[in-house]
């Protein structure tokens, strides 16, 4: 079964989303935009244009550019909405039986066919995005749509080659996005939708997981475009006051003012003041004229205050029709770009007496809800399939008591991870795998989950044996750790049952502790790294002497011994700088002796891995990373 996409087929813009890995995701169109204008056109050469392209050519081709067909879909010719729109729309409508057809190019189209053109583009773009055919969809419609309008929307889907699995109400979709269907009790929900061109208020009642629309109201001609217009007019007046120039006939200047108005409006949702700066806005005989003005949020709010207040009446009516008081509304959901404006949110709070729900992009909240409904229908949304994450990092102890993480915290499970380690001393017969949980740098500070030995490692210089350690964490949080000697094939493992069995408080405590000690832990770890460096230098010096006893002069041998002795004195120091200096000094002393050796021998020694670190401890020693380039340290 393929994906069921969710489509918000809007009056001015449409959006679509899909469930992916149990989460809804907005699908960008071919142009890379998250919404697509609901506009179609046929140009002079008979080519069909949809979306942004259709909108860009609208003024050149108004008779053959159709927009807002949602206002006509499923309606009869006699409907008063249709009769009013005949006068408002730039395209020609004709009566066809009982219903409406629209002239575009040489042909006449039903609103369903025109909506289908938008849906076809969405379908094609979704297929490109998902890399698979899309044949099924959930489409949203306004709550006030009657049966005919719903059926017509379904037909539009069919024409576009989509099987419409369900038509759902826009406010219901928005409520689904906020998971309001998951609440156990019966709730009353208000959905306040102030979009680009229309305002809708719906009162829903939830019972047994089913939403019932109790009432709807609104204003079919109130939206963001009206807000922009008010602001542009203000700019025109300001410019006239300052310069005495009426700019309304200057198309280029007007275009810039419109862009600036929209930008300022959006910015003032997050800041308190913006500077509108439009140099060279126009030119007179005296030269260029600039326009610069400061606009505060308070000023904007006073300009659009009336528009915001106009939404109050429909809200009151809707509540009255539903027979509920504002105090009985349990949740308020915001839909539409204009609800980002703080003044609008304030008004909503005033009307319903409670903070509205925010968090999801209000332009996308309906499409997301449709996708969730699609996911439920496709069987994608199942509670049992919810994936968990591991709350804390898991790792093993490595040389110097350092914790090396294999699985980072917040990794989605099930998961597995392998890494190759090695011995830390020559001829080391066994390694101990100490499994740790936690965020701290030092193993002693983390929780020990268990430990085991892998023995029977064939005698070899340090760093040569390859011990592959594999962490396998299953969906239930059961951790299996296996260590395998790649040389002998011997392996040992341990299973830890409750690696994920932590309370929320435990996890939070562990995380906070790690944060609090981050600096101190880092220093400790650095000191150990430097100490390991020094030990490595001592090991190399010793090895150089032992391997080449007959080729090194007695003087050099003596110098080496002295240098090694000197370095060994420093090994217990806890001062990072001192350890670093000692390691550097020793390396400096070895280098000229090594260089002499190379001069003597024409055939270089085997390319044995010699860049490993030494350790004079006995017995089992924690693993040491072999493939250094895979890790930081």
């Amino acid at each position, binding site marked *: 079964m393929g994906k069921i996409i969710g489509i918000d087929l809007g009056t001015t813009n449409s959006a679509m989303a899909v469930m992916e890995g149990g989460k809804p995701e907005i699908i960008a169109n071919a142009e890379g935009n998250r919404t697509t204008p609901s506009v179609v056109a046929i140009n*002079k050469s008979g080519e069909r244009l949809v979306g942004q*392209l259709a909108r860009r050519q609208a003024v050149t081709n108004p008779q053959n550019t159709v927009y807002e067909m949602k206002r006509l879909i499923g309606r009869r010719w006699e409907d008063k909405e249709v009769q009013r729109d005949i006068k408002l729309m730039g395209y020609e409508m004709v009566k066809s039986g009982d219903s409406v057809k629209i002239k575009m190019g040489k042909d006449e189209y039903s609103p369903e066919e025109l909506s289908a053109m938008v849906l076809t583009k969405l379908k094609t773009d979704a297929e490109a995005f998902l890399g698979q055919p899309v044949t099924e969809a959930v489409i949203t419609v306004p709550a006030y749509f009657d049966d005919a309008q719903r059926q017509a929307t379904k037909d539009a889907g069919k024409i576009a080659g989509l099987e419409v699995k369900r038509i759902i109400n826009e406010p219901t979709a928005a409520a689904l996005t906020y998971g309001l269907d998951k609440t156990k009790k019966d709730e009353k929900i208000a959905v306040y939708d102030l979009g680009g061109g229309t305002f809708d208020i719906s009162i829903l009642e939830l019972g047994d997981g089913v939403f019932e629309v109790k009432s709807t109201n609104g204003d079919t001609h109130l939206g963001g475009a009206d807000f922009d217009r008010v602001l542009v007019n203000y700019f025109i007046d300001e410019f006239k006051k300052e310069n005495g120039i009426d700019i309304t006939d200057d198309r280029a200047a007007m275009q810039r003012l419109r862009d600036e108005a929209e930008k300022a409006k959006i910015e003032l949702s997050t800041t308190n003041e913006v500077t509108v700066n439009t140099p060279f806005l126009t030119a007179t005989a005296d030269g260029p004229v600039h326009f610069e003005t400061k606009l505060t949020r308070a000023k904007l709010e006073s300009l659009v205050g009336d528009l915001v207040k106009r939404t109050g009446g429909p809200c009151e009516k809707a509540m009255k029709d539903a027979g509920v008081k504002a105090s009985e509304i349990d949740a308020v959901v915001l839909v539409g770009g204009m609800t980002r404006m703080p003044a609008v949110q304030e008004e909503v709070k005033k009307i319903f007496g409670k903070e509205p729900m925010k968090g999801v992009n209000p332009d996308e909240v309906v499409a997301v809800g449709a996708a969730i409904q699609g996911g439920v229908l496709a069987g994608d949304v199942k509670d049992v399939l919810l994936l968990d994450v591991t709350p804390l990092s898991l790792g093993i102890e490595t040389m110097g008591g350092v914790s090396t993480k294999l699985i980072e915290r917040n990794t989605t499970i099930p998961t597995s991870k392998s890494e190759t380690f090695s011995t830390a001393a020559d001829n080391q017969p066994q390694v101990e795998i100490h499994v740790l949980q936690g965020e701290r740098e030092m193993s002693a500070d983390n929780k020990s989950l268990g430990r085991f030995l892998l023995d029977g490692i064939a005698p070899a210089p340090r760093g040569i044996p390859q011990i592959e350690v594999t962490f396998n964490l299953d969906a239930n949080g059961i951790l299996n750790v296996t260590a395998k000697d790649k040389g002998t094939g011997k392996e040992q493992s341990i299973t830890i049952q409750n690696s994920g069995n932590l309370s929320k408080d435990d996890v939070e405590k562990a995380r906070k502790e790690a944060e609090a000690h981050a600096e101190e832990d880092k220093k400790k770890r650095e000191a150990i790294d430097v100490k390991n460096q020094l030990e490595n230098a001592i090991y190399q010096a010793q090895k150089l002497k032992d391997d080449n006893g007959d080729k090194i002069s007695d003087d050099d041998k003596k110098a080496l011994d002295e240098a090694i002795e000197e370095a060994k004195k420093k090994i217990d120091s806890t001062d990072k700088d001192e350890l670093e200096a000692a390691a550097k000094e020793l390396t400096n002393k070895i280098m000229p002796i090594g260089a002499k050796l190379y001069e003597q021998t024409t055939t270089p020694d085997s390319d044995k891995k010699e860049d490993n670190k030494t350790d004079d401890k006995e017995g089992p020693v924690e693993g040491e990373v072999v493939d250094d380039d895979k890790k930081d340290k």
Partner: protein
Amino acid sequence: MIKDKPKKSKDPAKQDAKTQELTADLQRLQAEFMNYKRRVEDERIKLIQTGKEQAVIALLPVIDNIERAVTHEPVDIKNHAWVQGVTALAKQLDGQLDAIGLKTICDIGEPFDPNRHEAVVMEDGDGDTEVIAEVIQTGYQFGDTIIRPAIVKVKRV
């Protein structure tokens, strides 16, 4: 007295159905993951380009105004060294933008193409061909990607 333990029903048909369902879920998830990986890789490549584009888009208002400043060069101080310097500076900016692959869309006289142009004014004429009469705001493209269409006045010829 010993009470018979109720036997757990192990309906094989039910088990089979469950296995099939889970296998289907797994396959779908795997397919989804493969598709997701492919898309993320595509997006990563695109993102590098988009990063450049976003930086230029943020600068476009300034670039526009520099262009306007040069267009409105005052006649009376045309030969002033400072004015000439500013003109040279604008040219230098053009050169640099060209070097990073940014091209202007300023197609006066060319046929109208909504892929490249956004029409805001229409001047009626007798002909059938729609051409660009005036560029109100220069458009920009990066390679083949239009990052901002030119805002134009269109006429029929």
